């Protein structure tokens, strides 16, 4: 009996060691735990101010912008709204490789949640605010397909009261052409060219304000809590619980050996920067130079932070003032997307080149050569089990149902 009692602690210690060994083969150190916590939604700072948009946080602008976002009258065929490609029940994206507006685009629609934290918008960062971004698709011949005076007339006919409340009175529009704008449609472009400068500026103001209202609404679209966030906040953390052993093994790879965290960092799991990761070109689509083209476009954009339609004091336009010049490393560099909700929004990459998340992980592990420019990737040679762990972890970033 006495001997048995002596043996008990040894057995107990052995059992603890076995238990730890089974669930936590390598304990997390403090630095790793800090890195893991830095990915939690709890770490998301308050929304950054947008000094270029004076109505960014005006609830009336939010309501107006939401009405604009879902209004299909802002299109050439009366069938396309922002929500056509940015569907609220689908993480504000459309599940398509190439989005369909009034025509087919050359890129994949990006989700909107948390985009207010991003200094540059679009896959190539050719816009520097949510409001300037919203204006791009409105004038694209394959997205909304309309033009500036058409949109001003839509505001006047259907949103005049709410608009006036936020931005003040609309300019006189009744003498202006029904369709005019600096767009690819030759008739609308000619009509725009024949308008006098003051009228053009007045319409540009309305056009910019449409964007500013949409931006105010989009600022309210934030990423929902995921199982990963709940696990970090749980008592079990960092032991298995809301996350399984496989998912935690994937997290360990994510922040360690696989190096995903180099670019997918912070609570939105993106560095909001641009990287060439050797994503293949799509046959039949025009050459896509990514950030090299986008950084030139954003500087030329009249709707940028330093432009006449911006409400910012120029010194506050720090992202534009200190934007890196487009060097060789920005050739075919595309924006790092957030990984929140990533597992349930295939296909992947800027033109939906990769069908499944498993294939994306294979792509990053293999690190093939870039079709143009230099890929930042180096081969990881992850084995099948490691790839499965990573996939499992990424699925834990889906919103809690």
């Amino acid at each position, binding site marked *: 009996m006495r001997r048995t009692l002596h043996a008990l602690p040894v057995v107990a210690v052995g059992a603890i060691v076995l238990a730890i060994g089974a669930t936590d083969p390598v304990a997390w150190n403090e630095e790793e735990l800090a*890195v893991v916590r*830095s990915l939690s939604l709890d770490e998301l700072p308050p929304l950054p101010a947008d000094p270029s948009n004076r109505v960014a946080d005006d609830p009336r602008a939010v309501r107006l912008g939401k009405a604009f976002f879902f209004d299909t009258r802002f299109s050439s065929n009366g069938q396309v709204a922002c929500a056509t490609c940015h569907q609220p029940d689908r993480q504000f994206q459309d599940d398509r490789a190439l989005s369909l507006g009034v025509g087919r685009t050359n890129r994949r629609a990006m989700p909107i949640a948390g985009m207010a934290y991003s200094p540059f918008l679009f896959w190539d960062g050719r816009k520097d605010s949510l409001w300037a971004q919203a204006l791009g698709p409105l004038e694209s011949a394959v997205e909304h397909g309309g033009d500036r005076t058409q949109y001003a007339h839509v505001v006047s006919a259907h949103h005049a009261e709410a608009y006036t409340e936020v931005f003040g009175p609309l300019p006189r529009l009744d003498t202006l052409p029904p369709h005019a704008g600096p767009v690819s449609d030759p008739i609308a472009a000619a009509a725009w060219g024949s308008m006098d400068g003051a009228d053009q500026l007045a319409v540009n103001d309305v056009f910019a304000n449409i964007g500013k209202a949409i931006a105010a609404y989009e600022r309210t679209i934030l990423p929902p809590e995921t199982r990963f966030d709940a696990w970090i906040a749980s008592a079990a953390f960092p032991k298995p619980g809301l996350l399984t052993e496989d998912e935690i093994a994937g997290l360990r790879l994510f922040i*360690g050996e696989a*190096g995903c*965290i*180099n*670019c997918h*960092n*912070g609570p939105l799991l993106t*560095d*909001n*920067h641009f*990287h060439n990761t050797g994503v293949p070109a799509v046959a039949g689509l025009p050459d896509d130079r990514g950030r090299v083209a986008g950084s030139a476009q954003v500087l030329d954009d009249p709707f940028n932070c330093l432009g006449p339609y911006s409400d910012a004091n120029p010194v506050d336009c*720090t*992202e534009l*003032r*200190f*934007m*890196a*010049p487009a*060097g060789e*490393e920005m050739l075919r560099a595309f924006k790092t997307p957030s990984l929140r909700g990533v597992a349930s929004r295939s296909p992947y990459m800027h033109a939906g080149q990769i069908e499944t998340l498993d294939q994306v992980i294979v792509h990053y592990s293999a690190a093939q050569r870039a079709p143009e420019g230099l890929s*930042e990737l*180096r081969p990881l040679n992850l084995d099948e089990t490691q790839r499965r762990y990573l996939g499992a972890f990424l699925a834990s970033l889906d919103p809690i149902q």
Partner: protein
Amino acid sequence: MQTHLTRRGLLLGIPFALSASALSAGLFSQTIPDDLDLALRRSTDASLYTVEIAPVDPSVRLGKMHAWTLGLTDKRGRPVESARIAISGGMPQHGHGLPTAPAVTQTLGEGRFLIEGMKFNMRGWWEIDLTIDGPSGTDAITFNFIL
């Protein structure tokens, strides 16, 4: 079975072996060299100046635009009031540059300058390269900073 190790084959293989060793030696390695000089006050390469840099807010946050100050003295320790200062940098282990183009935006007096537009978009070892073109001539220095 005979292996054909020709002279040409060996020569062709050299760049491959070099690039492979460069890879394993650190291009994508996460380990930061132990002997990295992390001092933020040092002499420039040709000892023309002494430069001291410091973030304005000591808690530098990942992905956040922020400012640094730079103090510049000549060989005799006198403040340099006027100099053209170029800033670049990047992550030697990842082969990319800074995500922004920082610049000196103000002369603060007594040899001090304000650098705005600094941002680090990854954790790890960053190099901050400065080229100083001042009254004693042009000189350069690379600081190491770990986020």
